[in-house]
């Protein structure tokens, strides 16, 4: 943890201007069995940003904490793009289609981006998640998944 904090501190010292909040929208979506959706990543910084997208299935513990794992074989995901270069102060939209063989499915689409590095190799990487809950019916899907996992907190 200390090392990460040190890296972040160095990052702020050397690239104070480059570290602007990157945002993902929407954060959570609920779908029926077949899902067609999209999410947007906004580069609020002044330098171009390379973003790569990875998909993970995840499960929840009773405190609502997620544990990621490789994408379940019953999940059929078609991403239009796996990566993009986002210009300064602009937004890029990633479209996808997702089919869940055995609902419910919980999938996190993780957008990874390097927000700065030095010639010495100090790297700060940010991961933003767009979470998709897929059930037989769209309504209250997230609530059902959390209830099935025995999550006791909101």
């Amino acid at each position, binding site marked *: 943890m200390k090392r990460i904090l040190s890296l972040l501190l160095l990052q702020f010292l050397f*690239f*104070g*201007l*480059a570290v602007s909040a990157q945002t993902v929208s929407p954060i959570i979506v609920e779908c029926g069995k077949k899902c*067609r959706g999209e999410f947007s990543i906004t580069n609020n910084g*002044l*330098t*171009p940003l*390379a*973003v*790569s*997208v*990875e998909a993970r299935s995840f499960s929840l513990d009773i405190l609502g904490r997620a544990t990621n794992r490789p994408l379940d074989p019953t999940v059929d995901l078609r991403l*239009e*793009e*796996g*990566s*993009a*270069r986002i*210009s*300064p*102060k*602009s937004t*890029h*939209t990633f*479209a996808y289609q997702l089919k869940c063989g055995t609902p419910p499915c919980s999938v996190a689409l993780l957008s*990874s*981006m*390097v927000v700065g*590095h*030095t*010639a*010495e*190799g*100090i*790297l700060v*990487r940010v991961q933003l998640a767009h979470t998709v809950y897929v059930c037989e019916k769209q309504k209250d899907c997230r609530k059902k998944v959390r209830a099935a996992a025995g999550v006791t907190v909101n």
Partner: protein
Amino acid sequence: MILRVCLCVLLFGVPASAQVLQLSGGRSTLLGGTGGEITAFFPESTLSASAGFANGHLVFGASDTFKFHGLEVTAGDRNFGYSFDGAGLGVSTRGLFVQRNTPHTTFAVFVGSTGIGYAAPFMVTAQAQHIGAGFFLVRHFDNGLLLSSLAVIDGGKHTAVQGLSYRSHLLHLAGSGGLLQNQKYFTGEADYQPLRNFSFSATHSDYFLADHLTTNSLSAFAALGHITLQASVLDGQYRLLKTAGASAGAGLRIGSLTVRSNFYESNHRILLVHVVQEHFRRWTVSGIVNQMQGQTSYAFGGGYHGNNISVSLDQSVLFFPVSGKGFQQTTTVQVSLRLHDTSFNFQTYVDPMMHMQYTTYASSYVQGPLAGRAMNSQSHSSGGKFVITGAVADEHGQPVEGAAIQLHGGAVVYSDSQGKFFARVKHNRPSVLVVLLQEFAAPGRWAVTTCPVDATPGTEVLIKLRREIAP
């Protein structure tokens, strides 16, 4: 004179050492101006210079914004503008501006001169007309209350406005009032949402155009499954001209299809608008039927919203209290194009009298020598049903994240944390594959050990890299 010298220094001296430059230029008949702006971003400060013509006069502006002991300081031109809940107020200033932000409080003061300013996406300037000074304070409280105060002495005119708002999950109340340049001013808004799908809203606003304009509105909204219902009454007074109007409508959404019918009444005229709208991925197509005084007309609208290009043609009905015309139909056309780090924007607005106003501008970011390595290639999806996949690994077999690979001389893709990448292509034939070392998001210096000349859809390519020791 000193300001003009500063402007020249900014325009010609600063870009050479800036971290990032933003260049903007444009023209607007709607806002009445033509000009450009250059902004240089440094790690510790931001320098900006604008010049152009506004309403037939040569205008210019320059500013330097920097941090000083936790304060944000601007020397030069700045719009001293603040948003109260539901209303925005602004004063154009030329002088010294100091702002302090804490998690719950924003406090700002300025001293210098005030005057008529010009603000557009491509140019911000101020004209010195009066000696002025002022402050602004906004304080957030944990219980949802927000308190704001603005006080400005601007030549012989005084502004003193107090704002208060409260927000809970059922209720939102906001109001601000006082003196605005020696004139009485009040704006208020109340929103009540007793149920998740029902909401009510009431507003009162004062505006100061060539004369005093007052508007009031009362509206209700309900969403019942796939059906939406809305109703509103509005009135406005500008000089001695009073205008009143009412509208009601219903909408039905089935999948990607939306059907809406709206009724508008103002000045004893009734307008019926029926809209059928289809959303298909990034496309929208609308068919519109208008019925007014026994006459029926048809129109079409729609648009495409992609990552590099957006085009739209929209028709909407707006309430015009200034002209006393009540509800009127307007047409807007918008085109946005992004090429690399440059964006081009064009917007037209056709009012009910068929007068066309437009705003067009371009803005570009240029990476300076202090910004480090810049990624210069364009990344875009060519789409297609064929997929080229691959993996990038270092000399130890470890995946390399952030490696940049160009396919077919076009799209650039980046490897993920597993070192994997993919790209969609339209044709099932080999694509030339190039590793762009200068575009890497991965840290350090790299050299290519092995890389196939081309890649064919359906087969995974493996690229091996070697990390080079920095000299």
